[in-house]
């Protein structure tokens, strides 16, 4: 794993403001379930997050999209609370729920009035212990997910491009397919596939609970033990093999679709979340696109006016991920010219680094966003889960402000030079097809 931090750097210390907000109490049940409690009595509400360490990364061809389809099935009935009961009981107790699936995790969450805490633990533990999958619900949910795919991918230009890009960037790794899965796979996933998935990945030993808000920790831990304590430990999930071969040169694809303007989606293969390079890339991402005065927004949107908008997504992942730029262009923009301008800016960062003021600005903004994220119970619980799932420990997340503060321009140069290379790059260009330019 590359080391970007200078050797003499002190062990990063937790930020004092964050530390005061994070009086976390931890426990692990005998079945392996980890529990993190974060009391705060400002408002009479509680947020509960359940992180399962499973996502499309754990899938294989033929059942792509099962993590996400399965997430939907978790709302369709268990032994004690049957079909449709989960949300009915939760809502009638003053709560709401939702869930999301990504490449590396599947996350369930509830916000609710604080006096509903025991009821929510009862509901959540019931579906972890004894989910019941019936064919009728599976077939209806399959239709719902196919409709979700139509709205997010098949009828959405960004969705189409993202799907194309994934297959360019990864040849072997399961990050290759979209989280929602291929349409044919969604149609064919069976009840047996789902049951197998549940036994392996939804065991308490593959999960962590985060509870934040208005509750008493001691009493709550006793409740968690009562409701979850008897759920049996699961088998150890198969490790995911990262068989991704080395990339030998730039990869390109074109997508022709009715549209008013061309657009560009460009990925560079990046590091895994746990690499120290990750945090340097966080700073670079902020300096490049955070705010109207950031490098790329200023250059591409305001000065040269080549693009309407530019975004860079740098999402941490368990295995090496990708830094993805998305540029929305004008009807008469030439995508090649935009690419050249973008690459020239990135090369400048690799050659000269950022200005000291830009670097300080990125640090200030990362810290401010960090604080904003922590303004709600839900934000605090989610932040803990996100850090623990991707960095291995939530404590590492609390140390981030000091990691950012210690980052130097030398590191910025090294990291930019290492990742923004043509041979790490994949480019998808959307070319408007003839019928897209409709007559007025």
């Amino acid at each position, binding site marked *: 794993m590359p080391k970007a931090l200078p050797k003499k750097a002190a062990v990063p210390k937790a930020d004092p403001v964050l530390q005061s*907000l994070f009086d976390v109490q931890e426990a692990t049940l005998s079945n392996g379930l980890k529990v993190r409690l974060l009391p705060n009595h400002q*408002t009479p*509400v509680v947020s509960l997050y359940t992180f399962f360490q499973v996502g499309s990364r754990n899938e294989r061809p033929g059942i792509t999209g099962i993590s996400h389809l399965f997430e939907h099935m978790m709302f369709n009935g268990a032994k004690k609370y049957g079909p449709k009961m989960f949300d009915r009981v939760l809502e009638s107790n*003053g709560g709401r*729920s939702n869930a999301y699936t990504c490449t590396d995790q599947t996350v369930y969450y509830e916000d609710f009035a604080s006096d509903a805490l025991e009821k929510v633990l009862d509901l959540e533990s019931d579906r972890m212990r004894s989910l019941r999958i019936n064919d009728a619900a599976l077939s209806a949910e399959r239709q719902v997910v196919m409709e979700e795919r139509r709205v997010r991918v098949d009828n959405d230009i960004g969705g189409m491009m993202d799907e194309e890009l994934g297959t360019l960037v990864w040849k072997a790794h399961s990050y290759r397919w979209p989280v929602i899965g291929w349409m044919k796979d969604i149609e064919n996933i069976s009840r047996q596939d789902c049951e197998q998935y549940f036994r392996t990945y939804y065991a308490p030993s593959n999960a962590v609970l985060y509870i934040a808000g208005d509750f008493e920790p001691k009493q709550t831990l006793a409740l968690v033990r009562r409701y979850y304590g008897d759920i049996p430990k699961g088998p150890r999930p198969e490790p995911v093999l990262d068989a991704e071969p080395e990339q030998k040169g730039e990869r390109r694809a074109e997508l022709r679709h009715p549209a008013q303007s061309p657009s560009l989606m460009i990925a560079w293969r990046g590091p895994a979340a746990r690499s120290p390079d990750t945090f340097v890339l966080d700073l670079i991402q902020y300096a490049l696109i955070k705010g109207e005065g*950031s490098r790329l927004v200023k250059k591409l949107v305001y000065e040269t*006016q080549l693009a309407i908008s530019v975004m860079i997504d740098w999402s941490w992942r368990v295995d090496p991920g990708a830094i993805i730029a998305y540029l929305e262009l004008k009807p008469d923009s030439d995508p090649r010219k935009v690419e050249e301008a973008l690459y020239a800016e990135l090369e400048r960062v690799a050659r000269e680094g950022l200005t000291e003021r830009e670097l300080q600005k990125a640090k200030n903004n990362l810290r*401010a966003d960090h604080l*904003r994220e922590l303004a709600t119970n839900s934000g605090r619980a989610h932040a803990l889960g996100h850090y623990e799932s991707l960095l291995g420990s939530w404590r590492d997340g609390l140390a981030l402000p000091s990691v950012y503060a210690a980052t130097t321009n030398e590191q910025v140069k090294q990291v930019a030079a290492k990742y923004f290379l043509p041979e790490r790059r994949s480019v998808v260009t959307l070319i408007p097809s003839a019928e897209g330019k*409709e007559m007025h």
Partner: protein
Amino acid sequence: MASRATRKKPPATTGVLSLPPVTESTTSSGLKVLAAERGPLPLVTMRLVVRAGSASDPSGKHGLADFTARLLRRGTERMSADELDEAIEFVGASFSVGINEDLVSFFVTTPAEHFPAMIGVLGQMLREPSFPEREVVQARERVLAQFANDLDDPSTVADRTFTRALWGNHPYGHDVGGTAAHVGSFTREDVVRFHSERIGPKVSLLVVVGAVSPRLVAEEAEKAFGGWTSGPEAPLVVPPMPKLASGRVLLVDKPDQTQSQVRMGGPGFFIGHVDYFPSTATNIALGGGFTSRLMNEVRVERGLTYGIHSYFDTMSAGGMFGITTFTQTERTREIIDVTLGEVAKVREGGIPAAELKKSQRYLAGLYPLRTETNESVAAVISDIRVHGLGDDWVEKFRERLLAVKPKQTVEVAGRYLFPKSPFLVVLGKASAVKKQLKGLGPVTVVPASECE
């Protein structure tokens, strides 16, 4: 800690909920300032609302309020756009603009130690924007290019077409961003005039919430806004609700679609209307939460869609009741029929007691979340003042909601849940959809390219 655990607490859905104390002051220029001190995070949020939303766009200049508000950041008498960006962004503050039919709003969040500097920048932008010609031209081009690209987003096109056709020529009948034809005609003079005639201290309110003392807020507000002289004495009066379109279908043709976007709407009521609580409780049961009747019948039972919801959209001079959903092209008629069938059942029978109670507890339990952040506290303080909701709005919200009786749901359902046939917008592949729409009223087909 153990003793606290055993102490009996009031139920969370009815225990006391109140806002932090609010301190009021007025600058010498006449701007009302409300300050609420609130920790523990070292952050401050500012919300400046001006009663000059899209309903105050001049005729032929739809989108001007939004356009002008966004240009304030592109230069003042003392600072260039780059200098403003740097001042705001270097310290980790954020500045954004929001607009609706009634209000244009400016939002700033900042680390607390930079509050004086940031309120100073906000004051400059409102008081003395310079609107450089070059910035006006560039912004116009960007907006026009964005309008073109928006044609590729089916949901956006459906929403805009819907608003326009439903409200017709009423000031609420255009998208807040305007149209390409109007924006294309904007000049620097238009922008300067809109700022000087419509945006000023007498029609604005500043709310500051966070880790800052009310005394400092009042002092800094005077420094920042004391010399603000533009704007009118009173906001424009929005005309009362018109008769909304009804009983017909607008089919927006986008031949590449494999899915139809569906919008339905009819008349509702204005903000602060006495029907608010019974209508809200009724709507949660019909199409609000995850277990609403519409979610159950359309999504869970039939797998027709990923999302469906119904809503009351309330504005100062009127409002609407609407439903938003989508489905695969072949099942467009089915989703419309199932949806209208569920609406009809509630219209005829209201919401029975047990179901009503579930909706009330759902919303009452979650209501405290609306006082969880500086931003949401600032929003509710501003709504209370701007729309005259009463200072006990937050305190009494859950009590009023829980007091709604089944009989009241029958009344409001009869009044708002499409007693007359709704107006429909369907966006999709017209060649496959049109034949499915027989019997829903006259159908007009328009190409998506004309719905900019």
